């Protein structure tokens, strides 16, 4: 049991996506303009990551290594399109706000990254735990980044305070993508300081 918990928890701190493993930047930079988007994107990505990790590790011995990337990506894409359809059908409002970014989950490097680096070599249970851990880690990272960007960039925190303006003159810079790069960079620095003192 302990290895499973370790696989799961490593995604939350030691190898938290975005901060430790610098993957999955494209959606992270584009979608985290509001906290709500960050959270939604994280949840959708987690769902896809868990399912794909599980299925890929199930088929890991079947798929020969020459075509492994193609097969994995088809599986991931299938899950993503499925999520897109289900969301449009049953959670229309969320799919509206996430818009373009659901198809971009398929190109989210985290998912294929975990498949290539982990699911391909480990058992199903471990892969599921890893997927869940990584997914939640990713959601956590996205939400933290989104909160920072929304608070500084737009001066509001939609999910928590609704329309109330918290910051009189917000820095528009953080709402744009270059701002996302800088915010993530600073967060990374903060993370290192924390982990160094935390260890």
């Amino acid at each position, binding site marked *: 049991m302990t290895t499973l918990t370790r696989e799961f928890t490593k995604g939350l701190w030691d190898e938290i996506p975005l901060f430790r493993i*610098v*993957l*999955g*930047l*494209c*959606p992270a*930079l*584009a979608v985290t303009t509001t906290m709500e988007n960050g959270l939604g994107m994280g949840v959708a990505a987690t769902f896809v990551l868990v399912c794909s990790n599980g299925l890929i590790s199930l088929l890991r011995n079947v798929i020969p290594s*020459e*075509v492994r*990337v*193609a097969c994995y*990506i*088809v599986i991931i*894409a*299938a899950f*993503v*399109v499925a999520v897109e*359809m289900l969301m449009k059908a049953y959670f229309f409002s969320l799919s509206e706000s996430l818009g373009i970014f659901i*198809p*971009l989950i*398929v*190109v*989210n*490097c985290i*998912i*294929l*990254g975990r498949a*290539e*680096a982990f699911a391909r070599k480990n058992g199903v249970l471990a892969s599921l735990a890893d997927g869940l851990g990584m997914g939640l880690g990713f959601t956590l990272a996205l939400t933290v980044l989104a909160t920072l960007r929304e608070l500084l960039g737009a001066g509001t925190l939609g999910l928590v305070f609704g329309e109330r303006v918290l910051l009189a003159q917000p820095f528009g*810079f953080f709402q744009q*993508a*270059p*701002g*996302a*790069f*800088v915010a*993530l*960079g*600073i967060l*990374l*620095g*903060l*993370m*290192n*300081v924390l982990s*160094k003192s935390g260890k």
Partner: protein
Amino acid sequence: METDFFALIISAIFINNILLAKFLGNCPFLGVSKNMDTAVGMSAAVVFVLTLAGIITWVVDHYILATFKIEYIQTLAFILVIATLVQFVELFLRKSIPALYKSLGIFLPLITTNCAVLGTAIINIQEDFSLLETVVFSAASATGFGLALVLFAGIRERFEIARIPKPLEGTGIGLVTAGLLALSFFAFKGMI
């Protein structure tokens, strides 16, 4: 109307540079730009994949997906084509340039999930480009990607002797600099 190819190329490389304006393909942007030759290797691979992918996806979309009205599997079909191309490049590199293959490491398969590649393919369809325009646009976008990557690799090699606060070393400062670089590309916004 006769599409102005020159304007198309310039806009693809500078104005809406896939990396620094549209912010697609950031993972390899930060992952591979640690040193110059991997960056150049990656750019070459992306140019090859993107151009070929542009052509094939255009053909697939126009002749198969449109006729059967099954656009919803567009993502699936495109990504499969791209993945095959990337796997092809991987096999090719492993055979003929093993050194580059080793240094690209995890980032070679990750070209498949490179948002820039799929992004450009989808843009080709949204902009309703003709085949020729698709080829030109894809190649130009890939060159833009390469330009940004090589530019950034140059800067990162200077980090070696710059005095950087300890926690920001490595990826942290990389991200901040990427942000500033992206900001500079805003200047091209108003050209066309």
